[in-house]
């Protein structure tokens, strides 16, 4: 039996060319590394340290007064605004993310079709990405440009209020009043869906058509399963975007707490708030992952089962082979010790 050997890299010093290539590689990723260390890992560690202290930044230096879990108890027990905003955030995210993802998919499918001025329309739908990423969005919201004037929000809220609790009805009304803004959050998601749609093999659609599949069936059986990972990606992207943009009241609350000069608040209090909020965001992402995470279809399951069976079979063959070798060795040993003889043909068998 021949045994496959892994090809190992020869040990020893790198060559001149390899060294140079490695150096260039490190140099290329150096800006990213510096960025991550300076603007992510360091602030992350710093805020983790800060959250156990009451911090006063005086003109003569920073004073750290240890408070243990004081910041947390203060946030949950003495700041009714924080839990209230967390609930609002959860509710809005759960409702708004599906709206954004579905809208983005619809637009992406339209842009992927055979239409005139495709490039122009793609530009139009991507434009809000530039607008919402700056202070312009705040100005537009202040000018009430984020709502549809013809939409009677009060009536919608009242209608929902007939079968929902008042706070839930108000949240729904809020979503309708910010409908334009929600749809404006779809720019990047449209692009992601568009690229996913363009990668679907047209042969699949052709085969489905030959088998008599309608467009509706093609969408459900080909398009949707193929772009499913992108739905998860877009949902996660939307959650992260909505959790960290300037319109998010919790972000503003943390910012206000950070720069608040009152003795209870400040950097320590804001850090504790930020860590708790990031835990909530992580949980939301986890929920979306569990809901939209890839569950293998029947075909995938069968393939996996077959692979498992083949592996099992291979293991069995190896086992038999090993047993055979062992038996041969045993026989050989016994023969050497003359514990048995082979038939020589001299007498009866």
């Amino acid at each position, binding site marked *: 039996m021949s045994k496959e050997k892994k090809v190992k890299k020869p040990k020893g010093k790198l060559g001149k060319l390899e060294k*140079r*290539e490695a*150096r*260039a590689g490190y*140099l*290329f990723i*150096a*800006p990213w590394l*510096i*960025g991550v260390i*300076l603007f992510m890992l360091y602030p992350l560690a710093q805020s983790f340290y800060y959250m156990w202290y009451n911090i*006063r*930044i*005086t*003109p*003569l230096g*920073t*004073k750290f*007064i240890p408070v243990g879990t004081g910041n947390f108890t203060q946030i949950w027990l*003495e700041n*009714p605004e924080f839990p209230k905003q967390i609930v609002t955030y959860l509710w809005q995210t759960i409702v708004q993310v599906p709206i954004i993802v579905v809208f983005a998919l619809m637009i992406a499918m339209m842009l992927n079709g055979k239409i005139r001025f495709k490039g122009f329309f793609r530009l139009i739908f991507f434009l809000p990405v530039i607008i919402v990423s700056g202070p312009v969005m705040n100005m537009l919201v202040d000018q009430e440009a984020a709502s549809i004037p013809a939409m009677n929000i009060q009536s919608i809220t009242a209608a929902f209020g007939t079968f929902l609790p008042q706070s839930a009805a108000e949240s729904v009304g809020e979503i309708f009043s910010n409908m334009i803004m929600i749809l404006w959050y779809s720019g990047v998601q449209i692009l992601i869906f568009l690229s996913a749609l363009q990668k679907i093999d047209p042969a699949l659609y052709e085969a489905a058509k030959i088998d008599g599949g309608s467009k509706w069936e093609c969408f459900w059986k080909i398009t949707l399963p193929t772009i499913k990972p992108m739905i998860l990606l877009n949902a996660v992207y939307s959650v992260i975007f909505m959790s960290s943009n300037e319109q998010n009241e919790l972000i503003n609350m943390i910012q206000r707490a*950070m*720069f*608040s*000069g*009152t*003795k*209870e608040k*400040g950097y320590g209090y804001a850090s504790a708030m930020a860590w708790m909020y990031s835990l909530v965001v992580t949980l939301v992402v986890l929920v979306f992952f569990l809901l939209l995470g890839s569950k293998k279809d029947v075909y995938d399951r069968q393939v996996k089962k077959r692979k498992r069976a083949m592996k099992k079979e291979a293991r069995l063959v190896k086992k038999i082979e090993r047993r055979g070798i062992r038996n041969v060795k045993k026989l050989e040993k016994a023969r050497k010790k003359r514990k048995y003889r082979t038939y020589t043909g001299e007498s009866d068998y």
Partner: protein
Amino acid sequence: MKKRFLVSVLLIITMLATLAGCGGSKKTSGPSGNVDENGVTTDEITLSFWHYEDETTVTLLAEKFMEKYPNITVEHRVIEDMSTDLSAAAAAGNFPDVFEGTDSDTALANMYWADISEYFDADPENENLMATIKEYGLGCFDTDCRFAVPMVYWPSAVFVDKAVIEKLNLEMPRTDWTWAEMIQLIKDATVDPGAGEMKYYGLGYYNRLDSLYGIAACASSERQIKGEFGFDGDTFDLQYWAIGEQEFSDLKLAGYVAPQTETQEMEDWTGDWEAWFGATGHVAVFSEGFWTYMNIWAQDGYQEDLGLEIVPYVTPNVVDEPEHNVIATMYMGGVSTSCQYPYEAYLLLKWMGWGIEGWKARIEIYNDTSITNASGVPLKHSTMPTPITLDEEVWAGYKALFPGYEENKVIWDDFFANITRPVPYGWYNIAGYWNFCDQYFNKIGIHDLVDKGTAKAADYVEEATEQANYYHAEAMISYFGPNGYDVLSDEDLAKYQAVVDSFTAQ
């Protein structure tokens, strides 16, 4: 390969250059110790001044200061948000040398202000300031040290429209009127002519009457009220506030108070959603900010066009006392703890705030109406403050700046004579006051509840008083105790600790 290497090096250099641009703060060498005969440094120095005033006015004032002290350069900027701007500056190490504050809790909690007692007490000019500044220790925050001085002052004022009083055939009130007389005038001047004609309202308000009443609530012999909510320098007593709060809400509910801008009531009354009651000619008494007179009513032709004749009255006292306190907007200013030239900074503070020379320079600037600010407004019409010094020359120049002064000289003179005992709103002068409002008072929405008639102000007195005393005591320990400035005596610390303990034990 060479090309790739160069590109990557370039990327890193660009990034590092960007990072370097993020930080950076000015570095100054320490004081040399060389001073002139007045004790002012002879070093070439730069002082930074952050404030809330009109930018053009302060630029001109700074220029005049620099003319007097040629070796001192003054850099100034307008504060947009005190908390954010100052905490960011402290974190970045470029804290201003001198600044005005609208929220003393922020300044004290973070030890922004240095103790300037040494300079203030030794300055003979400070003997001639409005009496309450020394008497009540405004800027000392109930300690023996002076951390701040009132810089910018606007008295509370009650304006009366003479034209409306005449139209309604009412008597003009006497200039040393009482609280009851003001309430009676508000009631008498509320007239609904009917037949589609606009209603006359007795009161149009910017400041709620409870704020005014809190200071004017009783005779000084009964309680020496030094601040809002019946604060006497030691404890609060909100029963005084509650009477004013209830009276004001009752007036609102009974229809004596004109609607506010951008309300349905305003549209129903004037036909204009955005109208302001002060421009209707149908309101008799106004509890407006003092700056409203110069900023709006005193503009050329404004009163003539609308048929108004506005005159100021002092906020009346409940008891008929010839001399009484008035509530005031007073920005506190101080020298920062990181300032390397505190005496020079004190001189700048005085110049920009209460100093006679500074005020003379101001009046000269205000008199030149050809100088306008960025909005094209002559500087005296851009939220001009009131002098804190009692210097006669300054006051003569100041009074002459008011266009309506000569026509109603007696009323104006009486008004000015009666505003010399200012008591600032709580957040300027009481430690812990803002925390109390932010974390308790504003959260329970007392004003709304009482205004709607769903609650009585008196119901909150006991609890609110306890809360206010607790927040004040806790702030005093935190700001001035061992973890803060450390200027309280053991006796004082024990006193405040007892209040905190008794509150937390409940």
